């Protein structure tokens, strides 16, 4: 890449020799060398990222098509540091022609070019996962997909030509295939398998590592189930070793080729773990599936697409839009390509920039566009439309938290939409508070657990850099009855959930792990958390009062028998009289200290 930067002050000969080295860099090549930007920096994270990208795509596809999503994640260890990941959904399926581009061309997709709230944004994720698998194991991405209108399904194997950022098709077959899912009940007992009429399955084999814990696939899927209560998720992981601990050696064997296509893998390398040998269709030596059951059968509201708001746009993008516009005049370009620009506002902008509203937008020169950019930001405009967002909703957040986190107090709040840099966004927050010691996962002495979501996608990594953590740290939790060391997270047996919904979530990097620190976002998050905190403090003080009452009751119960015994000894009372004294006093004192 050094060639790009060749300096002119070198001699001609050098410049010519350099010219031989200068060539295009494909996006694929760039990302191959900078894979950390996409979330493939280490084997453990690679596994999570691959699952995440595939699940996000499946959920987006189902939501857009109005299908209640059914997704299975099947992970199988195929070598010391090799895993085969298969994700199957009941989405609309993908037409054959699009399959190679979607799975083996970076920056291809439906989401980048429009402002609409969706999980994926750029169209990099799933192809990057395939590329990573290809790079680390030499295998290809295997896709099976069936759409509703065709009888047959397609089976396509693709690799990415990293130089050209183009797919290479290795196999392209038609076959009889339906997505299948293997639900289990709450006790892990298999239920009747589900077969879907359409859907997609993608299988990628890659170098990866599996470790349980806060950054694991398990945690990601659990959080997915929390914010998507309408999703039914099936998951299993089959390991070749018993303990999913930190791997010590890096002996990557390329012996075992990936052949598995469907979520139902062959049984060659089944894990030696003991299973309950369910009698139903699963092979008996398989690890059982875990089902995160659906808690809501209503689909979330469909987000609508909006045009960009002028106040949220960069100069370069403005220039590009002027070049691409269908509008014949500057005025019509402003009115039609942006949201919230009325005829009057467009004229006002043009006048402020010293431009004729009737001038041709494609002819606006660099300097003029700068003036235009300045004028746009100086003109008062209506805020962008905010009905385009699809929040999870307070009820759904509560349902999700209740489903996956055992606690005693739940609350959730959905704030009204707000705007940062011309992008509408909405913040939601939820709390789940367990009695200290009641939930083994929530230690009362440790910092609270934070579940961060952007457009319903769990964010596991880089919490420290995220606007959500900053907002949580900034709230005064002490006033709500929690321990809160200055400058760090509050302490307590609690889960805090924060969701940001936006047509464009400002991540700090392409791997989409942390939300950038926009003051508007932090402020809204703070408000949401404060409201949750107030509700928590009401609950906590009520609980304290109850505990205090319980304590008082026990204290009284301790001494009443002595009082009665004393009276009995002085007055020579009998058993019955002694008991009467105790029960009468008990009632009297209970009445008074309940009134207190």
């Amino acid at each position, binding site marked *: 890449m050094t060639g790009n930067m060749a300096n002119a002050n070198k001699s001609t000969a050098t410049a010519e020799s350099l010219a031989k080295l200068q060539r295009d860099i494909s996006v694929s090549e760039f990302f191959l060398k900078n894979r950390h930007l996409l979330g493939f920096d280490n084997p453990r994270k690679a596994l999570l990222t691959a699952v995440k990208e595939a699940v996000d795509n499946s959920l987006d596809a189902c939501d857009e098509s109005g299908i209640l999503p059914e997704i299975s994640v099947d992970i199988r260890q195929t070598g010391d540091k090799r895993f085969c990941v298969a994700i199957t959904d009941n989405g609309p399926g993908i037409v054959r022609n699009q399959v190679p581009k979607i799975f083996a061309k970076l920056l291809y997709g439906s989401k980048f070019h429009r402002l609409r709230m969706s999980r994926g944004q750029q169209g990099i994720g799933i192809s990057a996962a395939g590329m990573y698998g290809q790079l680390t194991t030499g295998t290809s991405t295997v896709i099976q997909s069936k759409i509703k209108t065709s009888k047959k399904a397609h089976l396509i194997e693709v690799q990415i030509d990293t130089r050209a950022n183009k797919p290479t098709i290795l196999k392209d077959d038609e076959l009889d295939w339906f997505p299948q899912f293997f639900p289990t009940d709450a006790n892990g007992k298999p239920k009747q398998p589900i077969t879907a009429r359409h859907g997609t399955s993608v299988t990628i084999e890659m170098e990866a590592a599996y470790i349980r814990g806060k950054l694991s696939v398990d945690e990601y899927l659990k959080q997915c189930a929390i914010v998507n209560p309408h999703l039914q998720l099936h998951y299993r992981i089959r390991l070749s070793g018993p303990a999913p601990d930190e791997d010590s050696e890096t002996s990557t064997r390329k012996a075992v080729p990936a052949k598995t296509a469907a979520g139902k893998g062959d049984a060659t390398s089944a894990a030696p773990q003991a299973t309950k040998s369910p009698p139903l269709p699963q092979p008996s030596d398989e690890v059982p599936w875990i089902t995160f059951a659906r808690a809501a059968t209503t689909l979330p509201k469909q987000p609508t697409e909006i045009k960009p708001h002028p106040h949220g746009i960069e100069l370069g993008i403005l220039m590009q839009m002027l070049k691409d516009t269908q509008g014949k005049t500057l005025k019509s370009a402003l009115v039609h390509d942006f949201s919230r620009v009325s005829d009057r506002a467009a004229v006002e902008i043009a006048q402020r920039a010293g431009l004729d509203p009737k001038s041709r937008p494609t002819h606006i020169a660099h300097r003029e566009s700068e003036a235009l950019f300045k004028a746009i930001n100086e003109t008062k405009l209506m805020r962008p439309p905010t009905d385009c967002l699809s929040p999870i909703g307070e009820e759904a957040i509560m349902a999700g938290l209740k489903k996956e986190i055992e606690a005693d107090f739940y609350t959730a709040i959905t704030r009204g939409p707000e705007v940062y840099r011309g992008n509408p966004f909405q913040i939601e927050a939820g709390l789940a508070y367990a009695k200290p010691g009641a939930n083994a996962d929530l230690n009362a002495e440790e910092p609270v657990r934070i579940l961060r979501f952007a457009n319903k996608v769990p964010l596991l990594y880089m919490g420290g850099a995220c606007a959500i953590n900053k907002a949580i740290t900034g709230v005064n939790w002490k006033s709500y009855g929690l321990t809160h060391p200055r400058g760090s997270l509050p302490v307590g047996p609690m889960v805090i959930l924060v969701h940001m919904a936006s047509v464009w979530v400002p991540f700090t990097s392409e791997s989409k792990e942390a939300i950038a620190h926009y003051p508007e976002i932090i402020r809204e998050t703070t408000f949401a958390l404060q409201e949750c905190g107030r509700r928590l403090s009401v609950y906590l003080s009520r609980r304290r009062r109850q505990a205090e009452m319980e304590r*008082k009751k026990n*204290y*009284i119960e*301790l*001494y*009443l028998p*002595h*009082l*009665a*015994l*004393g*009276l009995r*000894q*002085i*007055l020579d*009372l009998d058993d019955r*009289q002694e008991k*009467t*004294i105790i029960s*009468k*006093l008990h009632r*009297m*004192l209970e009445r*008074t*200290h309940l009134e*207190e």
Partner: protein
Amino acid sequence: MAKSKKSQSVSVAAPQLISKRDASSRIVGVANTIHQDIVKKNARPRMRFPIRSLSNVKYDPKKGHFEILNKMSTRTLSYNTVKTFAQSMRLLATIKRDLLDKNNIAGKREVYYNSKSWGECRFDEQPESDSLLDDMEAMLAVNREQLGFIPEERGGEVTGPLVVIDRQPGSHEEIRINCEKLGTGAWSIPSQVEHLRFESKAKFILVIETASLFQRLVHHRYYETANCILISMSGVPTRACRRFIRRLTDDRKIPVLVFTDGDPYGYCNIYRTLKVGSGQAAHINQFFCVPQAHYLGVTPQDIKEFDLEDATHPLEELDIKRAKDALKNDPFIKHHKEWQAVLNQMIEMGVRIEQQAFAKHGLNFVFETYLPRKLKKGIFLP
């Protein structure tokens, strides 16, 4: 010897001795009321006590002691009082069954240890049981000796021309104690003094605050020189000590003179308690006071007259507070202008003085010069 008319006009009956059976039936009465409250009236039971503080006493110069007023405090059963209430009932039951009905006696500390068998109802520290015992005493309007409790503290020491006629425990054989023939020691006042009889030709009783000055006077046989009975109190006099002095002066018709440190504690706590009783145990003051007592010294005026200014100590904050409190709240001080003058003079001088300070003029100055001169002058504080 100037004899105060006041002291002669006082005539107090011997403490009203209630029988063990009476005491026992008073306990039954209290318990019965509580039981009726609970069972019949369906009301939270209450215990009523006379308030035991200076705010609930009145100084009656005719009777010569602090008299309890009728301010009462009520302890109603509640979350906050349930433990004390339970302890009160168990304590009353113990007093009735183990002391009164069995004709036994026990020390306050033994009561405390006895409660250790009451489980969670036990007293954690002795002050708890002591104060509850005081409450019961006041509620029943008896003194604890009558309930069968013997005080732990020593009652004071006696030397001088006095024969005490006591009885041997058990055999009840009469025994005569000559307090002049005790060698270098002294006779200790027992906790029960009601049965004692006296023979004495002494002219007066000299009551001394500190044990060390008492011993020096004994060593120099001052009781012979002055023909007086010497009694040491070692601080605030115990009930037995007060009662003993009272019985002795009633019986022998001789005056009582008190010699303490010259400070607010000596005046307001030691002397005042001896003379008119305490605010704390006001319900029994009529027996435990010595209205015949007069104050000899050391007064602030003595500091000047005996040239002792350089043998004093500055008053501490606590001393000043005590003096001011007494001027404001102590019915005895408020009644006597002389005492108000003394306290005000002391606050003004800003110093206090100890009994031993007379050693400035020589070790024997106190009994060779000070006491004779004061006695000769015959002017004492009321």
